[in-house]
């Protein structure tokens, strides 16, 4: 499967990575809901690191749609809370 880390690029991961990514993502969602700054930073970093460590970066000339898209690694809790909840931060392509 293909995962895109926004502001960074796409990675190809084994399909088996889906479950752990989903878990990490769930932890991230909870951190945002709980407004926990420390938890949020940690969860986002863990998710991003997992993809980087387990995936292979796609070449620039590979054109594939992603199955999962992860917010930019430097996303702030405020951005996550306000911008990613609606359509805010993703502009019209």
């Amino acid at each position, binding site marked *: 499967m293909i995962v895109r880390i926004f502001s960074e690029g796409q990675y190809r991961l084994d399909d088996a990575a889906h479950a752990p990514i989903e878990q990490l*993502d769930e932890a991230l969602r909870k951190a945002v809901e709980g407004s926990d700054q420390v938890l949020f930073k940690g969860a986002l970093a863990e998710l991003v690191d997992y993809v980087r460590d387990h995936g292979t970066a796609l070449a620039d000339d590979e054109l594939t749609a992603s199955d999962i898209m*992860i917010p930019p690694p430097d996303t702030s809790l405020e951005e996550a809370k306000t911008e990613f909840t609606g359509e805010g*931060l993703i502009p019209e392509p």
Partner: protein
Amino acid sequence: MPGMSGRMSTIVKAKVSKMLDRAEDPAETLDYSYNQQLELLQNFKKGIADIVTSKKRLQLQEQQMQQQVVKLDTQARQALAQNREDLARVALERKQSVQGELQGLDQQITDLEGQQQKLIDSEAAMRAKLEAFRTKKEVIKAQYSAAEAQVRISEAATGVGEQMADVGLAMQRAIDKTQNMQARADAVGELEAAGTFDDLTQLGPGKDDIDRQLEQVATSGAVDDELAKMKVELGSGGGAPQALEAGSEEEAPAEDEPAAQPAGGEAA
């Protein structure tokens, strides 16, 4: 996926498919993407220019603040040498506040540099994807049946669409951050204009009472020093306390002494 990534994926996919739906066939999708790309690149150049401007402005402000720190430190020392601990305290308090602002500015400038680099990287990735799309489209057309080609080109176009969403997001965030920093820099500028800390170190109108007192102390200190030096030269052998006492009575000769001018100027 119910989490953040899932939500993000859903939003981006919805936007990309909306974009692709506007095109009736894959070739048209390419043209559409290309025009979008040209527009994006224009916005990009503007975004990067804005960031560079903001960065320069913040750097200038940083320099001014660094000078203030040095001046306030000097003034504090001078006040303390004159046993004016109250004034020294005020100067040091102001120095602390300027230093606090400085640290914030430093972080902001670093952030801006990061944003600038991200925009440049995003632009390069976008160019690469679009170039790949243009060549791949022809290859796919030559290799596959019309129906299959349509599917594959749509898939590739989705990849380009995602990249655009990525680039658009990077730009949006950079603009937001720049605007925030601009607002903050403006607020600091207003503080300075209001005399909160800048005026303390400047001669001319706008000086407050503490400024004048600090200046007086620095000036009279310089005068006293000069007098003490002169007395030693004249062989009167006067100690420091005696020189300080004499200082208030013999201001006029001290002002004629050329060496007193640089000392007074430094204090200002």
